[in-house]
């Protein structure tokens, strides 16, 4: 997939989101664009159409997820945007765990499902996606420039 997604391609992404996170009709009200590194961005139809008049367009809309081998990991904004729709693979963190998460530290959480990705939240605040490692640890997928402390772990640059 590349560029502006067709309705059929959107459906495929929606299926992935439904299977992994229980999100229904996630992209219904948006146009979706797949840009470099399989990143999915969303915006509104009129915004996309307006962009056709412009020269030097760098980016359109909001980066919400990354596609990887028939799986999808949500960005921090993706989890926040779909916060009311996410039904499964959620881990609830304490404030201390949330702070660790934002520092990029791995967490050990009991009874995590066997999904490869989980969504973390503290209270009603969504914190992005973590990758569940074979070692049972959860690796927060926080971009380097959004870690609250540097040099703790080389976070995967989303």
């Amino acid at each position, binding site marked *: 997939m590349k560029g502006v997604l067709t309705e059929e391609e959107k459906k495929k992404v929606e299926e992935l989101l439904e299977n992994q996170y229980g999100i229904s009709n996630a992209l219904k009200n948006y146009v979706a664009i797949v840009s470099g590194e399989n990143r999915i961005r969303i915006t*509104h139809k009129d*915004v996309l159409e307006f962009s056709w*008049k412009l*020269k030097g367009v*760098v980016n359109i809309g909001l980066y919400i997820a990354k596609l990887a081998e028939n799986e999808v990991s949500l960005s921090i904004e993706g989890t926040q945007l779909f916060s009311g729709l996410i039904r499964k693979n959620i881990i609830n963190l304490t*404030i201390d765990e949330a702070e660790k998460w934002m520092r990029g530290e791995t967490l050990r959480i009991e009874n995590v499902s066997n999904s490869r990705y989980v969504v973390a939240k503290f209270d009603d*605040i969504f914190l992005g996606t973590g990758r569940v490692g074979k070692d049972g640890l959860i690796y927060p997928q926080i971009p380097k420039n959004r870690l609250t402390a540097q040099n703790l772990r080389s976070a995967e640059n989303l």
Partner: protein
Amino acid sequence: MSACTWSGQSGINPSDDLLDFLRRLPDMDIDAYLEAASKPLPECFRINTLKLPEERVKNLLKDRGWSFVKIPWARFGYKLMSGPESGLGRSMEHMLGLIYVQGPVSMLPAEVLEPKPGTAVLDLCASPGSKSTQLAQLMNNEGILVCNDISATRIKPLVANLQRCGVINVIIVQSDGRLFRNWCKEQFDNVLVDAPCSSLGILSKDWSAANRYSEKLSRRISRLQQSLLISAYDCLKPGGLLVYSTCTIHPLENEWVVTHLLDERSDAKLLPVSGNGLKSRKPLEEWAGVKFSSEIKNCFKCYPHDNDAEGFFIAKIKKEM
């Protein structure tokens, strides 16, 4: 007087060029200006309601040990009073996009422009995105927000900040703002030109601007600002509103630039700008033998020592139908 012999109380040494300029401003108290430049700006932030309701974020911040007071001139703006030592800029709230750390007076231009949800808005000189993210918030992520910057280096923080704040309705463009009118004539309801400037209103943040200053530099920037403002104005729909702002106190980059637009475009009218509680002063009617438009009195101007914050100039311009 040379830089070394300046006998002010601030403990900082301005260049001869800067001192000469300050002395030629009729309403300038040099000691007060340099004193303000020697102090850090108050730490302020805006709650980003695109992420969570304002009350929810306020409660979260309070629970986590921050105390703050409302800024009267910005709907979601707050001044930090105390909090954890690590600072707001490295806090979880900042990294999650729940807040945006921003200078207090810097919040005023977007408030003056007051874009409505569903409209088409252009931020011509957008990086690093403080005002762009504020515009998106006021638009409630509805409508079209075009954020432009000429520099590839400056596009990166713009992209990062718009992402962090959860802006969906945005198009980020890297182009020369002076050319924008060639492909976007009369396309926007609102335009913000937060122009590149000599930064003499934010020396407390960046003293190097004082060392860089020369009259020649201001004249060169002024010509660029004039071209940017004309281009931005031509992108406005008839009946549309434009805000021109700088963080400098130089009349060549402020009053003169706006006067040039009024001379060049007969349908441009200046509307009054209210500081909503910010202390302000009258723009100059003339400077260095140049007479400015009689409408210039409608603009907002403040020096850094007026509010112990940034010095700013803001013009609100309407394109008549």
